[in-house]
C-alpha cells in the first residue's frame, strides 16, 4: 500500500494573534508554526497502515522553506520520503487553487491512498482534500475515524453528527480526510530522527497554471469577533440573591421559565 499524506503547516494554536497594518491578515513575522493537528493524525494512520500491510508513506507539504520542519518531523516519525512544493504564497491559496497545485505535485505517484486532515486550524475551509479527490478522479470519504484495509478496497468508518457513525466501502485508489483523535500519535525516536537525515525530500515548483488560476474567494478584512453581549451581573457576591434574581429574569425577560 502506497500512501501519500498531505500535511499543512499552520500557526501555533496557542499563539496570540495580531492583525497586520492593512487589516487583511495576521502578522506572520512573530508567529511560531506547527503541523496542522488533524494532518498529524493522517500521518499516524498512514504509518499504521504501512506497518500492517507494508508499502510506502510519502509526505507532501507546500509552502516556504519553514515547512521543512513539518516534513522532517514526519520523516523522523517514519515516513519514507517527501515532496515539498516550494513557494511563499502557497499557504494563502484558496482551496481550489491549493488542491490544483497538490494534484499536479502528486499526480505521477502511483499511490493507493491519499490521506489528509479533515480541515486546517488556520483557514478552516475543510475542502482541499475533497476537491483534490475530484481533480484526481478519486472516490473519497471525509471525517474518517477508522480504516480497514484488509480487503481489496477500503472500508472506512465515518463520523456523522450527534454520535452517529457509518461505514463506507470504496475501491482504491481513494482519498480520505482524517478526524483528530483517530489514534494515539507516536513520537519521533532518536533513531528515527537520525534515519530521517538520509531520506529524500524532493523540492518541486508549483504548477504555474495552478497558481495562476483565479481565487474565487478573497479575504478583504479580518478582525476580532465582536463582543455582542452586555452581561448583567446578578447578586453582587451573594449567591442566594443572585440565584433568585436570575430565576426571576429567566421568567420575565428571557421568558424561559
Amino acid at each position, binding site marked *: 500500500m502506497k500512501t501519500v499524506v498531505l500535511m499543512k503547516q499552520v500557526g501555533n494554536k496557542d499563539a496570540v*494573534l495580531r492583525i497586520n497594518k492593512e487589516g487583511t491578515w495576521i502578522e506572520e513575522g512573530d508567529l511560531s508554526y506547527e503541523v496542522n493537528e488533524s494532518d498529524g493524525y493522517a500521518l499516524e494512520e498512514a504509518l499504521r497502515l504501512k506497518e500492517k500491510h507494508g508499502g510506502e508513506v510519502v509526505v507532501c507539504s507546500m509552502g516556504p522553506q519553514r515547512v521543512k520542519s513539518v516534513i522532517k518531523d514526519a520523516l523522523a516519525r517514519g515516513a519514507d520520503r517527501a515532496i515539498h512544493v516550494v513557494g511563499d504564497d502557497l499557504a494563502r491559496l484558496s482551496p481550489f487553487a491549493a488542491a490544483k497545485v497538490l494534484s499536479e505535485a502528486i499526480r505521477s505517484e502511483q499511490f493507493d491512498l491519499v490521506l489528509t486532515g479533515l480541515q486546517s486550524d488556520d483557514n*478552516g475551509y475543510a475542502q482541499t482534500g475533497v476537491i483534490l479527490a475530484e481533480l484526481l478522479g478519486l472516490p473519497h*470519504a471525509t471525517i474518517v475515524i477508522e480504516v480497514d484495509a484488509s480487503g481489496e478496497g477500503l472500508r472506512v468508518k465515518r463520523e456523522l*453528527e450527534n454520535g452517529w457513525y457509518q*461505514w463506507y466501502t470504496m475501491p482504491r485508489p481513494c482519498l480520505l480526510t482524517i478526524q483528530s483523535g483517530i489514534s494515539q500519535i507516536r513520537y519521533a525516536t532518536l533513531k528515527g530522527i537520525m534515519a530521517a537525515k538520509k531520506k529524500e525530500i524532493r523540492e518541486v515548483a508549483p504548477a504555474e497554471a495552478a497558481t495562476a488560476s*483565479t481565487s474565487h*474567494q478573497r479575504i478583504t478584512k479580518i478582525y476580532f*469577533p465582536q463582543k455582542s453581549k452586555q452581561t448583567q451581573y446578578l447578586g453582587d457576591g451573594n449567591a442566594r440573591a443572585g440565584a433568585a434574581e436570575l430565576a426571576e429574569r*429567566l421568567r420575565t425577560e428571557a421568558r*424561559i421559565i
Partner: protein
Amino acid sequence: MSKGILVFAEHRAGAFNKTSFEAIAAAQSLGRELQQTVTAVVLGAGMANLAQTIAAYKLDKVLYAENEKLAEYTPDGYADAMEGVVRTIDPQYVVMPHTYLVRDFAPKLASRFGKDVISDCLRATASDGGVIFSRRIFLGKMDADVIPSGEPPVFATFQSGAYRADQAAKDGSAAVETIAVEVGEVRMQPEPAFQEVKQAVDLSKADIIVAVGRGIKGQENLALVEQLAQALGGELAASRPICDAGWLPIDRQIGSSGQTVAPKLYVALGISGAIQHLVGMKNATTIVAVNKDREAPIFDIADYGIVGDLFEVVPALTEAVKKLKE
C-alpha cells in the same frame, strides 16, 4: 443569466435537520437583501412526501430531485445530482448548511464549476450589489470578511446556529416540482448508520441546556447540576475535560470536538469558556454563566452572569426555579 438563490435542504431518517431550516432562513435573508427568489432543493428517492413538508416555507419553489441512487447519501450520488440541479436552475447563489454531510460533497460539487465553497459562514450581507460573507478563522479567534469573485454560482455554507430556524418565514405557498436527475457511477457503498453510545442524545434539538465544566471538581458533584437541569426541564451537557475524564459520556460534550448547539437557554456552570467550547454554544439565545473568576471569557458572551461559587449558586437556583414553576 444566473439568477436567484438555491438552498439545499438536508434530511436523514425521513426528517429534515434543524440546520436545513437555518439554511432556509439564511437564503431568505439573502433573498430579501438582493431581491431574489429562493428555491429549495431536496434530493432523494421516494421522498416526495418529505419534500412536500418544506413547501410550507416562504419559497418560490421546492425542487424534489429524484433518482433511485439517492436513496442513501453518497458523495458521488449527491454531487452528480446537485450538479444537474445547479446547471438546470442556474442560480447566482447556492446556500447550504455546514453539516458533515454537506462538507462531504459540497467541495466536490463546487469543483465541477471550477470553484470552491465559502464555507462555515456566520453572516452574509448585501453590499454594492454583491455579498460579503463573514466566516470565523483561526479556530474562532478571528473573523474574516470574504468577497466572492468570478462567474456565478457562488457556493456558501452556513454554520449551525448562524441563522435561526424559527426565523425562516413560512407562507405555505411554494409549489413542489419533481424532476428526475442523472446520477452516474456511485463508487462508495454505505452501510446503515449506527450510534455507538446507547442513549446518545441530540443536544442540538434541546431548548434548554445546563452545561458543566472543570469547576464541578468531581463526578460525585454532578447530581447538583442534574437537579438544576431537571428543574429547568433541560438537557445535561459538559465541556471537554468532563468527558475526557469520563464523568459524562462524550455525546454530552459541547464544543468544536463535540456538538454545536443553539438552544433558547444555555447555563454554563464552572466553564471558563475556552474558544473550543464557545464555538459550540455561542449562538444560544440566552446564555447564563456562573463562575468564580470574573475574568473568565465565558462572561464575554453571557447575558446573565453570577460571579460566585457554583456549589452555593446551583442549589439556590434549583430551588428558585422550582418555586417559580409551582
